[in-house]
């Protein structure tokens, strides 16, 4: 049983398209995150949700919109994709009190 699962694993799309990445965790955690890892392997926080409420929104273009339908899911929708959006996107979850983060396997997004 995968603890944090993301779909799809790979996403290849054209500039200007809209795409979504889904994330689900079965750990019973109350906090979920989206991170972006660039080509130099730098991992940076994008969003943080606690009990379905947004608590962090780093300097991310508003083309990126996270949606949390329930505590176990945090999806990422991206509008009008640009070349610079190409990266690996990681979903993670944690129990707020512990802050040990469990990561999904990542979604490699390639914008052509």
């Amino acid at each position, binding site marked *: 049983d995968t603890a944090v699962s993301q779909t799809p694993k790979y996403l290849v799309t054209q500039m200007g398209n809209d795409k979504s990445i889904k994330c689900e965790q079965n750990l019973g955690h109350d906090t979920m995150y989206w991170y972006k890892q660039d080509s130099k392997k*730098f991992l940076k926080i994008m969003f943080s949700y606690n009990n379905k409420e947004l608590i962090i929104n780093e300097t991310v273009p508003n083309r990126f919109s996270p949606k949390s339908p329930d505590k176990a899911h945090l999806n990422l929708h991206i509008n009008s994709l640009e070349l610079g959006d190409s990266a690996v996107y990681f979903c993670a979850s944690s129990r707020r009190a512990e*802050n040990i983060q469990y990561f999904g*396997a990542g979604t490699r997004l390639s914008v052509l």
Partner: protein
Amino acid sequence: TQLLEQSPQFLSIQEGENLTVYCNSSSVFSSLQWYRQEPGEGPVLLVTVVTGGEVKKLKRLTFQFGDARKDSSLHITAAQPGDTGLYLCAGEASGYALNFGKGTSLLVTP
């Protein structure tokens, strides 16, 4: 944003050698974490250090938290090919998220 500087950025060594990776900041952290990431996977937590001066051991890996809680090091004894991966240090940021260092990419060849 509390910045974490990791060094070296890349390390290529032979099996059996020892190595140390450093994680430094000008800020004080309540705790620091070390993660390892393998190709095609997400980072996996290795250890959390909380107390200044703390030393934790995980088999051949030794983690140390600086007395002032601004820096940490990871020492690997007798490295093995299975140790190959990206090592990331991370400190708490706002909203329960983590600020990561830029990572140390380690390659251990037989």
